[in-house]
């Protein structure tokens, strides 16, 4: 435990100014479920904490007229899985939000925090990648947008400069005839970090896959956009053979390690199982809503 300065700005500009003044020893606080633990365990030497929860843009959850979802970076997961429209449009995100931590954690932990923590096993990251999310970033030099797939660069590291702030995440409107799913493997029912996570997003038109995205968690230093696997699905009918092929490609391109949570071999094996199951689930959802 250390002595830290606490700020609670009410505008993005103020937050960015505080970051610029105090970088690199300042850190944004949303739910604090990662940050406070890291500070308590002395894993980080930040001594300025900037609470983002009083900035309206960071706590807003809105849909545009076109159906795009804008998720403020500090929106906690309970608001995500409690939202009916998200549940209908972005099933994978809802599924991830529902299994991150227990009730108490879900009341605090935010989607932006999960992204900025950049853990390889963060459960909301594969769904964001598979759903094509874009990250809207503010800094002293203005705004920029980065794809969720590009956001994490290494365990615990993101594209954010020390004086930049993740403001919101935009998920493009749901396509007709599409569906998504997120599956996580853990040995227990609860309390565990993902051993492997797999998100799938499929869109069909006239019985043919028109777009596909597969993203994996906990099998590489960052969430993995399994493009080679998803590419193999486009143009197929989304039958079990094509899903099996995509699962095998995903397994091939995963780069897991062995640690206390699982072995590399088992993780690789699980990628195959989870990708196939996630694709089956996403396809069933796409077909159920196609008509």
């Amino acid at each position, binding site marked *: 435990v250390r002595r830290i300065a606490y700020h609670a700005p009410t505008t993005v500009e103020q937050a960015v100014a505080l970051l610029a003044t105090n970088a690199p020893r300042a850190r944004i606080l949303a739910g604090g479920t990662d940050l406070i633990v890291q500070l308590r365990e002395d894993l980080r030497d930040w001594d300025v904490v900037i609470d983002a929860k009083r900035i309206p843009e960071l706590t807003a959850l809105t849909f545009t007229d076109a159906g795009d979802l804008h998720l403020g970076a500090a929106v906690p997961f309970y608001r995500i899985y409690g939202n009916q429209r998200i549940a209908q449009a972005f099933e994978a995100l809802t599924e991830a939000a529902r299994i991150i931590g227990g009730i108490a954690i879900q009341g605090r932990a935010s989607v932006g925090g999960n992204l900025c923590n950049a853990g390889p096993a963060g459960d909301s990251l594969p769904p964001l990648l598979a759903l094509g999310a874009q990250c809207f970033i503010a800094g002293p030099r203005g705004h920029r947008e980065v794809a969720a797939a590009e956001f994490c660069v290494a365990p615990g590291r993101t594209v954010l400069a020390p004086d930049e702030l993740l403001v919101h995440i935009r998920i493009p409107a749901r396509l007709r005839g599409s569906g998504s799913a997120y599956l996580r493997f853990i040995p227990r029912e*609860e*309390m565990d970090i993902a051993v492997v996570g797999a998100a799938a997003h499929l869109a069909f038109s006239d019985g043919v896959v028109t777009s596909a995205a597969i993203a994996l968690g906990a099998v590489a230093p960052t969430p993995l956009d399994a493009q080679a696997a998803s590419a193999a699905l486009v143009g197929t009918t989304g039958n079990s053979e094509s899903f099996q092929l995509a699962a095998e490609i995903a397994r091939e391109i995963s780069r897991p390690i062995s640690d206390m*949570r699982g072995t590399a071999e*088992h993780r690789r094996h699980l990628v195959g199982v989870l990708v196939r199951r996630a694709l089956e689930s996403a396809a069933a959802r796409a077909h159920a809503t196609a008509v």
Partner: protein
Amino acid sequence: LTIIQPRVDRAGPVGTSPLRHDGVDKVTGRALYGIDASMPNMLIGKVLRSPHAHARIISIDTRRAQSMRGVHAVVTWKDLPDPGDQMLAANEQGEAPIRFKALNMIARDKVLYHGHAIAAIAAVDGQTAEEAVKRIDVLYEELPAVMDARAAMAVGAAILDPELRTRNGAAGDRLTNVALHMRVLAGDVERGFAEADVVIEREFTTSTIHQGYLEPHAATVYWRPDGHLLVETSTQAQFGVRSELAGLLQIPPSQIHVTPLEIGGGFGGKTTSWLETLAALLSRASGRPVKMVMNRAEVLLASGPAPGAYLRAKIGATNAGKITAMQVYAAVEAGAFPSSPLPRVAHCAAGLYDLNNFLIEGDEVLVNKPKTTAYRAPASPHCSFAVESVVDELCRSIGQDPLAFRLANAPKEGSLRADGSRFERIGMVECLEAAQSSAHWRSTLDRGSRPIRRGRGIAGGFWINGGGLSSVTARLNTDGTVTLLEGSPDIGGTRTSIALQFAETLGMAVADVHPIVADTDSIPTSGMTGGSRTTFATGYIAHRAALALRERVIAGLAKLWAVSHDDVRADSGLFTAGSRAATLKVAAQLLAGSGVDLSVTLSDRVPGVGPAYAVHIADVEVDEETGRTRVIRYTAVQDVGRAVYPPYVESQLQGGAAQGIGWALHEGYWYDSQGRLKNASLLDYRMPTALDLPMIETIVVEVPNPHHPYGVRGVGEVPIVPPLAAIANAIRDAVGVRVTDLPITPARLSAALAARDGTQGGATAQ
């Protein structure tokens, strides 16, 4: 909860479920636990722990820490007296030289495990102490770490203690990590195997396991200027803490005053002292009371887990289903210092069946892990895992029902024990019969369809149970209630289970008994709460104290009523002499101030221990694609002698089963290649949560212990014994593969399934 009772003549308090005496304090938060202790002017102590599994300490420089503002004391090994060759009657794991305990409390020239204490600091607050700990500079020379028993026994293995020689071994005077060799032979094993139609032998490994008590270790100590030591701590053994501190600090036990606070779980892990020594040294150095509390990582790194082990079990049986011989070898990890439950292996393995021929051997091996401590029925889960897995294979091999096979080979009165004695009345047959007629065993299991497969397993467990020294003081108050001081810390509801026995014997309401767990000055020495002994042994002493107190009341009334002692009769709490009569309450009032001594203190060793047996049935569901196992139905059957307080008994059965299921499927210390513990948190040391367990059904069988007035046997330990094999056998039944390494993680099971199918894509062990 089903209770199968031998008779129905029960009118007294024993066997009822009144409000527990400690209940209101605990649910209102009033009860004081180790972490709640506070003394005026108190400092906070923190520990510097080794980042290495095995290293020589070149130097310790505490100057930077010492000079920090707010730091009041820094201690290292130099502050602890050299204990020489003195011995310590440590705990139920046996006697050991104080030297080992001293070296475990604070490292001297070597660190022997990741987390080994090197120095401790007392400061005005925890933050300052933590910062100061970081400013202690230690130079290490890293040494190779030996992390499991077989590696430690291999030729050329790094040696933890160059002075160690094997006890009872033929090894002679040479360097070794083997502290003790054990060999127990009965009958003629070779002839037994020759008579068998089928002989099956398998090898097994189990991981280092933590008891997982929720309350971390906490101790608050004041070394007064007059040389007396005040200790408030969370412990199963206030007298054990006293004698350990006396040995370690070399001061007389009469100057040490240990108050056991409420205890948030122990399971054997709090049968010995931990932070008390360092807190005492810091208090002496600072002149102020010092409080120390471990965080969760420290609990996992540096308390006393249960040993990992390697086992080999070989059992022969006839085609008719009779066991002809059993041979078991166990290499048990002691941790960094000698003493382990190895001596129990003979009893625990041989006690599972009615055997004429058995050979049980083993080695106790030092490894670079924390020194192990007791955990519920030490060594018995390991033995049951090996033996009951092999028996399951034998039953499959000869085509016998596993329950019928066990009934045909069950130990009973007259069966041979590992020490050469014969069992008295025991209840394994009754447990098996209860299992056989249970709704669970008689139900049909839906075997599932790919990828989900279901299976059922059964396994038995045995535990010797403990007796030993217990003390109580009973005092009849003027209002007719009784204050009952007990020398046994209450970790499983023993205040009430002892009070029930006392109340029944004296013929009074249990609510009128006020049980108090006493400090070391308020009651004669008492053994620890452990070994499933407290309700049995301290209950027995309480029963005798009730009889003695009744005699005092009779004597007092005889004097008051001017009748002879023999004319006063006592029955169900009513005292009569001719036309005179007094209830206990009235007698208490009549005798108030009369000078008649209405208090009794009794302290004695309690013989007549009744061993415990259990049979568990597990249904599991395996996802063959992921290797994940779910427990979907579970029944624990146990002979408890007599259920003194049935809800406690049921909780013990359920808690033990839950911990055993965790041992089977999830739990295990995970070390990296340098011997550093990587899962020292409850996130990654995976104990089962409530969501991971089905409702554990319980069937309580009562086969009274003939040596106890209420038939009590110990209850708390044996329920952790059967789950390991019950789960492994159920998985075998579900998917056709036998996993012999614990925990049966999804990775391990997946690898075994891949081997079964001849496919890739599984995973190798760990």
